[in-house]
């Protein structure tokens, strides 16, 4: 969301999460239909399964902080990011957000493969909440960063998956929100581009911005973050300095500093 708010000072609260709980009720039936509803009326009960994704989580993020969020698959990391971004309403608790939030939860949201890369820069940028003028101002920067060259005018369905995600990341990295949430969007492209996108994230670190990074790349988080939160099965296990928290997490996984967990960006 574009913001007209005044610059934020370091140590001011950016996001305040209080007693957050989130439960999903998923239907056993594949799709909700009128037919399925009529059938369950006859049985008198709904066939549903309740999943507890987040359980009583308290978390404050301050401006100037770069918070890494770690945890095994299904720990509720992505769910928490979606709740903070206002995409999913919480089941319990309260979230207060002080500033404009931009999300990078998946790459290429709003892109249309039948349009050219050029059109998609505008489409993706507008979807991310930028204005058309802002995108036009940054257009050169975006295409240069994506290293697409003349391919920018070709339809996106002709792109390789690497080209696709490079352009998507370039668009997303141009948004300048107060609070940026990135969910495993850094592992795009070849090693060179990974390095480049990591540097871009480092550039985004500043005293008047809060960054929340979800990642399984422990080396990256040790490098970039100044704070790490560890979630496990919907609960906040530990919060603190990156070294300490990540060590504890890796010990918990009984993997130690093995290559498999340290290498991937």
């Amino acid at each position, binding site marked *: 969301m574009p913001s007209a708010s005044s610059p934020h000072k370091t140590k001011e609260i950016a996001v305040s999460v209080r007693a957050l709980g989130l439960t999903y009720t998923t239907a056993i039936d594949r799709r909700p239909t009128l037919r399925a509803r009529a059938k369950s009326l006859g049985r008198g009960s709904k066939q549903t399964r309740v999943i507890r994704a987040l359980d009583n989580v308290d978390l404050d993020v301050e401006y100037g902080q770069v918070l890494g969020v770690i945890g095994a698959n299904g720990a509720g990391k992505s769910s928490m990011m*979606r709740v903070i971004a206002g*995409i999913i309403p*919480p089941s*319990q608790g309260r979230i207060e957000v002080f500033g404009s*939030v931009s999300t990078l939860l998946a790459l290429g949201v709003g892109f249309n493969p039948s349009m050219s890369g050029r059109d998609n820069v505008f489409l993706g940028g507008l979807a*991310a909440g930028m204005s058309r003028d802002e995108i036009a101002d940054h257009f050169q920067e975006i295409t240069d960063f994506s290293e697409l060259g003349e391919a920018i005018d070709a339809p996106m369905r002709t792109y390789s998956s690497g080209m696709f995600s490079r352009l998507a990341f370039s668009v997303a990295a141009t948004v300048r929100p107060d609070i940026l949430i990135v969910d495993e969007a850094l592992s795009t492209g070849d090693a060179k581009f990974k390095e480049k996108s990591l540097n871009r994230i480092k550039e985004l670190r500043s005293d008047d911005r809060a960054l929340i990074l979800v990642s399984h790349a422990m080396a990256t988080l040790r490098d970039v973050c100044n704070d790490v939160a560890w979630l496990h099965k919907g609960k906040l296990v530990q919060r603190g300095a990156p070294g300490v928290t990540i060590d504890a997490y890796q010990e918990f996984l009984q993997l130690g500093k093995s290559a498999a967990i340290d290498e991937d960006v």
Partner: protein
Amino acid sequence: MSTPSQVYEPFKAGLPPLVRYWKSLWSRRRFISEYSRSELREQHFDSAFGQLWLVLNPLLLSAVYFLLIIIIGGASDALRYAHLTATLFLFYLVANSLTGGVKSITAGQRLILNTAFPRIMLPISAVVIAVFKFLPTLVIFFIIRSVLGLAYSWQMLWALPILLITIVLALGLAITISCINVYFRDIASFLPYLTRTLLYLSPILYEASALKPALRSLQALNPLFPILDSWSQALVYGQAPQGSNLLAALAWAMGIFLIGTYFFLSREREFAVRL
């Protein structure tokens, strides 16, 4: 301590703050137009043959229905053909809004799960697409009208407010049905029968005045009836439409729009977990 710019609390059915919602929607108007344009292009309407088809399709439809009128023995003069094309094209504006709107939320799943934005944008852009498809057919109608040698008059300007009312109705219907489709996915397969029924219940293949007295009661249940009747009066006959028809059309359009929007806005925060 400053006040938070956003507060998220457990979902309750109820309206979000409307002023903020409207501002957020208005700030994304460019996205609505770009999104609609890209959807149109997806349907190949940017190629020469695609645009030709956009014009050819309603022309062929009107030819087929005119054939039907001749076979079942209705009046088949120039006026009747003008009436058929005028009302049929406007009907397709509403029908296309419905068919485009019904899956707008479920098809926008990726967008909805990954970005926060006013969800009502998606059915709105379905209506924008339907309007884009409607405009060339309006040009075709005026060509047909001139070829048939019908006289022009200032009363035809009544078509403008009627078109506005139709768009409000189309918005209301698209918003309502996109929301229903989130909860009952089979509504999309039921929709063709609904639009087909609406087509026959509307004064398109016949004149409004030719309806059997026994069927008059159905007329009151069809929001399109007063709209299409007034549209034909203004555009085909060059006469001012009846005030009662205009009022009924406006009441239907506003009613469906307001109820549908209320229904949608009070539910939309829950869409992400329902997809």
